[in-house]
């Protein structure tokens, strides 16, 4: 009898923990800490985390395959950011399955057009800013590149303009036909999907871990590790529905300051880790500092900000939402990749890219002694203004 009780309680505890981890949403602040830690680990493992570079690689391949570009790009499974992106997508997919939230989700026709336009704008913005909301903003600020602050300002203004557009659309365009979810005759599915989904999710995670060993076997441990880190980021982002767009949009929309607080805190953790890495030269101190300060970052941020509002997802949000089954964001990803790759090639060929600015390293401007306190004060100030705005709604436009 004793042993039966023991196994029953193990089973009960496992069930309870499964629900806590895979069914209840994680608080955003916890995800913010996890993402900062993972970003630090990626930095230590190879180089600072980015996403747009992977999208660019996929776009490069398209132009190469149609004969538009004769340079053969690096294969996607050996391109660092492409592999991280793939891990992020797989992690979100597995997480959506384990929480029984995966579903092919269609949207009204007009939403696909918005997804495409948003993707094109984000692709263009990321090309100008030398990175997306991750590489150009989050990582840039985290690794003390001044371009990150310029992009942040651009993102804020862009989000404001994008929100204005969404409000205009709501007032002036006819409401879209809502998607009919139940299509008359509901067929009884042969497979009980809600019951099967978690097992498929588990199998996908196991396969991704196996892929790491496979990479290692072929002497590509570093790339394999990025797949694994990407997987964890995807899992964290999906479980918490982590959304960078919110940090820029909500202060204008509902006044909600939660994501500003989370992103600011996450950046403080990230900055602390990267200061340790850089100040002690564990990695070269200007590693990851290439965002074109200030024109490229500012302009890119502005265009990216408009795009992320229209598409309803940034570079990371697009990936994890595709993992959850949103078909609209597949269109966004295509628009992003093709525009980003093309514009970067144009910037390179015409030499215009050099006119946008160059990477400026914060400690070179302010020294470590003043730079580090300024870094923390700035983020604290951002969070405090957002909290003040939450109470007073001074910036809320609607």
């Amino acid at each position, binding site marked *: 009898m004793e042993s039966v009780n023991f196994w029953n309680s193990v089973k009960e505890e496992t069930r309870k923990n499964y629900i806590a981890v895979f069914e209840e949403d994680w608080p955003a602040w916890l995800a913010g800490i996890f993402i900062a830690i993972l970003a630090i680990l990626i930095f230590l493992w190879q180089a600072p985390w980015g996403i747009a570079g992977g999208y660019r690689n996929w776009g490069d391949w398209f132009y190469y395959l149609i004969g538009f570009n004769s340079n053969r790009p690096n294969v996607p499974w050996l391109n660092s950011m492409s592999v991280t992106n793939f891990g992020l997508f797989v992690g979100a997919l597995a997480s959506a399955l384990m929480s029984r939230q995966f579903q092919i989700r269609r*949207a009204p026709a007009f*939403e696909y057009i918005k997804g495409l336009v948003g993707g094109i704008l984000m692709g263009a913005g990321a090309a100008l800013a030398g990175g997306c909301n991750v590489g150009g903003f989050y990582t840039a600020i985290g690794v003390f590149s001044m371009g990150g602050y310029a992009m942040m300002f651009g993102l804020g203004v862009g989000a404001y303009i994008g929100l204005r557009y969404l409000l205009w659309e709501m007032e002036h365009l006819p409401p879209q036909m809502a998607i009919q*979810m139940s299509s008359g005759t509901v067929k009884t599915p042969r497979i009980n999907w809600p019951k099967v989904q978690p097992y498929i999710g588990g199998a996908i995670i196991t396969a991704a871990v196996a892929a790491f060993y496979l990479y290692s076997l072929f002497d590509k441990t570093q790339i394999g590790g990025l797949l694994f880190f990407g997987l964890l980021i995807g899992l964290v982002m999906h479980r918490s*529905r982590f*959304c960078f767009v919110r940090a820029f949009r909500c202060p204008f929309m*509902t006044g*909600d300051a939660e994501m500003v607080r989370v992103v600011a805190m996450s950046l403080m953790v990230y900055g602390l880790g990267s200061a340790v890495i850089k100040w002690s030269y564990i990695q070269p101190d200007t590693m990851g500092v290439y965002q074109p300060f200030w024109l490229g970052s500012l302009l890119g941020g502005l265009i990216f900000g408009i795009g992320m*509002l229209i598409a309803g997802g940034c570079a990371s949000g697009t990936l994890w939402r595709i993992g*959850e089954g949103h078909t*609209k964001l597949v269109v966004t990803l295509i628009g992003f990749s093709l525009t980003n790759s093309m514009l970067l090639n144009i910037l390179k060929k015409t030499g215009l890219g050099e006119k946008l600015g160059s990477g400026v390293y914060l400690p070179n401007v302010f020294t470590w002694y003043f730079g580090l306190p300024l870094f923390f004060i700035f983020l604290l100030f951002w969070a405090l203004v957002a909290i003040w705005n939450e109470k007073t709604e001074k910036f809320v436009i609607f």
Partner: protein
Amino acid sequence: MDLTIINADKVLDTSGLTCPMPLLKTKKTLKGMASGEILEILGTDPGSKNDIPDFGNKGGNQFLGYVDDADGVTKFYIKKG
């Protein structure tokens, strides 16, 4: 409160739309309603389960709860304050 017998004064269908559209439309619709009226929002975006309850309790309004329908649609109820 029993949500299955609730009588909504207005129904807003956001099925198929994703963040932030359901929230924007909710805010707009609530603005045009009288105090004490109940708004029912239909939605399919999983993100709405965080957004709408948080938003529903702001500005004097009261979030009453949500129910999942069999076909993947969630119904949210907000009472205008």
